[in-house]
């Protein structure tokens, strides 16, 4: 990264904005507006209506479903986007610092138009869409938080996938044997911690390259869980791999909030835990002594060392906490979402959460945003399949990956890595 050297000394009088970008944005808005009209509006007969469901399935409706005239909605959205584009182009400096916000709005308009069009004459459950978006984001966010914990302290963790798998298996095993989901959860977290300890010892004490250590843990975990699974869990399915699941718990009052209540406050423990962890970490990292010290170790361990902060201990603690979160995320798969472990059931989520972490610039809320984006694209794709859009399923299933790539390339710039991420700390060196 570039900025570690001491660069600027003087304040410059002249500020040069990037006019090209502003112009390009304007054109993008226009193109989207045109696209809504060209792709969707022209295709719709007058008089059709689109119904947006506002309550998730199995809930008592708190607000009525929203039915909109398809064509009018599309035209209005197209015009709005077009106008925004014109304004952006005509005004000097466009929307200035609000440009990204407007861009978000325009993209949202496009997505809504798309849904309105796809569900023309039918209905689509909007609340459900957001609900599955959130659910899909849960393990990704947890995984990304695990990564943030490790990497903010300067230890690269690509072993999230392996830790998740191990957490999932151990949680299922212990919950089945003990009959208590909580014991299973604790065991899953402990399994993550154990792998974290190995990762820590290898990368902090032995200064092994952290990518290698992480890769080894991934391979080990996949092998170990599959081994145990085929040798024991599948054979004694009912005794060893039948843990049950945490059931949703509707928070009184809050779950009665119209629309959002059902999505946010009628979930199982893991969803609440994710929000709690997210808030704790976001707050902890930037507002507490613990966070300040941990980040200092990830940015400039020698500086931290000179101020009496124990770099090694801080890193160990962070890696342990991070791997515990990964173990927790793993437990979500086997006892939080569905009951039981299956070989490679995490299906690459650990790697995707790694992407979410980088995407969110190592900031918890940002990683949550990345996870939501992925979850939304994923849910949207499955909604479209349900709506019967005539696109081959395989191509629809590519959507979340493609969306992530496009957003990464287009909107999010270069990531700002913690400066000492992946660099083993040598206490004494000339």
């Amino acid at each position: 990264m570039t900025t570690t050297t001491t660069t600027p000394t003087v304040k410059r009088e002249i500020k040069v904005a990037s006019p090209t970008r502003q112009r390009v944005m304007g054109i993008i808005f226009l193109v989207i507006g045109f696209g809504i009209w060209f792709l969707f509006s022209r295709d719709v007969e007058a008089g059709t209506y689109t119904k947006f469901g506002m309550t998730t399935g199995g809930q008592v409706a708190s607000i009525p479903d929203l039915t909109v005239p398809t064509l009018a909605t599309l035209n209005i959205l197209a015009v709005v986007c077009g106008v925004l584009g014109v304004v952006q182009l005509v005004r000097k400096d466009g929307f200035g610092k609000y440009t990204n916000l407007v861009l978000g709005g325009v993209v949202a308009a496009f997505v809504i138009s798309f849904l309105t069009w796809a569900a023309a004459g039918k209905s689509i459950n909007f609340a459900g869409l957001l609900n599955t978006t959130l659910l899909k984001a849960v393990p990704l966010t947890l995984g990304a938080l695990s990564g943030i914990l490790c990497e903010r302290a300067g230890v690269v963790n690509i072993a999230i996938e392996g830790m998740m798998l191990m957490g999932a298996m151990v949680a299922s095993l212990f919950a089945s044997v003990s009959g208590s989901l909580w014991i299973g959860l604790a065991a899953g977290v402990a399994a993550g911690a154990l792998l974290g300890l190995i990762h820590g010892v290898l990368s902090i004490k032995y200064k092994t390259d952290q990518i290698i250590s992480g890769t080894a843990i991934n391979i080990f975990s996949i092998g170990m869980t599959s081994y145990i699974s085929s040798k024991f869990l599948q054979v004694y399915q009912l005794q060893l791999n039948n843990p049950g699941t945490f059931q949703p718990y509707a928070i009184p009052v809050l779950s009665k909030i119209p629309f959002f209540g059902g999505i946010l406050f009628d979930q199982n423990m893991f969803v609440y835990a994710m929000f709690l962890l997210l808030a704790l970490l976001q707050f902890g990292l930037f507002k507490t002594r613990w966070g300040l010290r941990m980040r200092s170790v990830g940015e400039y361990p020698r500086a931290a060392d000179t101020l009496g902060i124990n770099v090694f201990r801080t890193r160990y603690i962070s890696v342990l906490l991070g791997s515990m979160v990964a173990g927790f995320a793993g437990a979500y798969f086997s006892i939080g979402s569905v009951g039981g472990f299956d070989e490679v059931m995490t299906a690459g989520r650990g790697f995707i959460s790694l992407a979410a972490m980088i995407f969110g610039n190592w900031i918890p809320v940002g990683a949550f945003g990345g996870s939501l984006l992925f979850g939304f694209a994923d849910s949207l794709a499955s909604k479209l399949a349900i709506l019967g859009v005539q696109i081959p399923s395989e191509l629809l299933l590519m959507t979340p990956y493609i969306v992530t790539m496009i957003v990464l390339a287009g909107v999010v710039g270069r990531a700002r890595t913690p400066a000492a991420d992946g660099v083993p700390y040598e206490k004494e060196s000339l």
Partner: protein
Amino acid sequence: MAPVLELKGITKRFPGVLANDHIDLTLEEGQIHALLGENGAGKTTLMNILYGLYQPDEGEIWVQGKQIKVHSPSDAIASGIGMVHQHFMLIPVFTVTENVMLGDEDVRAGGILDRKTVAAKIRQISEQYNLQVDPDAYVEDLPVGVQQRVEIIKLLYREADILILDEPSAVLTPQEVEELIKIMRSLVEKGKSIIFITHKLKEVLEIADQITVIRRGKVVGATTPQEADQNQLAEMMVGRQVDLEVDKEPGRPGQRVLEVKDLMVLDDRHQLAVDGVSFEVMEGEVLGIAGVQGNGQTELVEAITGLRLSTSGKIVITDEDLTNSTPRQITEQGVAHVPEDRQKDGLVLPFPVADNLILNTYYQAPFSKGVVLQADKILENANQLIKDFDIRTPGAMTKAGALSGGNQQKVIVAREFSRPIKLLVASQPTRGLDVGSIEYIHRRIIEKRDQGTAILLVSTELDEIMGLSDRIAVMYRGKIVDVMPAQAVTKEQVGLLMAGITQPAA
């Protein structure tokens, strides 16, 4: 009364190096004790031991008449020892407040940081010692001089009584150095004691109460400013007679080689860093660009060498318009570049010396035939250059990372000087080098000038600029404020220009 600090027989060995050899040092209360020595003499190692970063193999540390064990910086801090490191120990993405409180935070219940209280303390300390800083500013946005103040505030915040300042003036303008000296005086007045590490003789003579000189890990002398002069000190430090002046004939400028016209360049944050700069460099002359770091010199050099695009203006090298050409096109026009940061930009440290010597010519004959590298030619070239440029290395196949700083720089110089060049762009060519290497590099540059090469020298070391240049251009806030013949100006005049003449440096 016992001295504030006493080091007795400190010894430290690193694999293959005896960094400190039974060093004794005594610091009296309210005094400034200068520790003088060349780079690599063992000053920093000694201070790192005192500060608990390293553990000594032998020796004792006494503070206020009591022996202490310093296992970690926390122990040092607890004993009232504070240190400003040569490379600032500041985290660029943190604010001043965060940097100051790190490790000794004021917290409310639950470990929540109390930034307000700390910021108030910082303001109070700033006032007391006249160290203005904005507690809420991000360190990466601050000028080096201010960053140094932050470092000092860090010590005062921790109520350190013994302050170690490691090469504090290396990165400052003359005016900032003046400022620093004032600060140091006021600290001593308020009862603090200071160990001042440097290799700059003038500063030592100006403010030190005691002077200890070390060379190759050993104390070679202790004296006071009253008893010693610059030449004596230099001799003690280097171990031989040193000629502090660069020996050179006046330059004989010939044809124009480089012409920069109305050049505008943006920095990484899209701010204007080079603001309409114009100048020329002739054959056989050294144009020195003086200026405090961060006034656009880096961007200027990068634009000339093709590493950064300019937004407008022209760069012409021997009648060829090379504005916004690629680095390779420019290199092939006979432009050599000695970069500012030799480890980051100049060398591939894991590569052998031989490979580093062909880093920008590897694709040309005789090193490459077709696409195949000619190992024997590469080796031959390396052995020749190692001899010609006196690079101290076990062999051509030794990794560049294993060499000392001076020899690393020699590798770069050898690579750049050994090809036929018309223009040499040298950025901070001697930063962080020992006196011997500095001498050597300076001699080489003048030699090159006398062969008719045009030389653009960018340095923040005013002595270097004064010593080498035929003409001096001063850069301030992205503009060249003046260009003048070197003989016609004094150091003080240039120093004022560097600070922007009318207003003092920020």
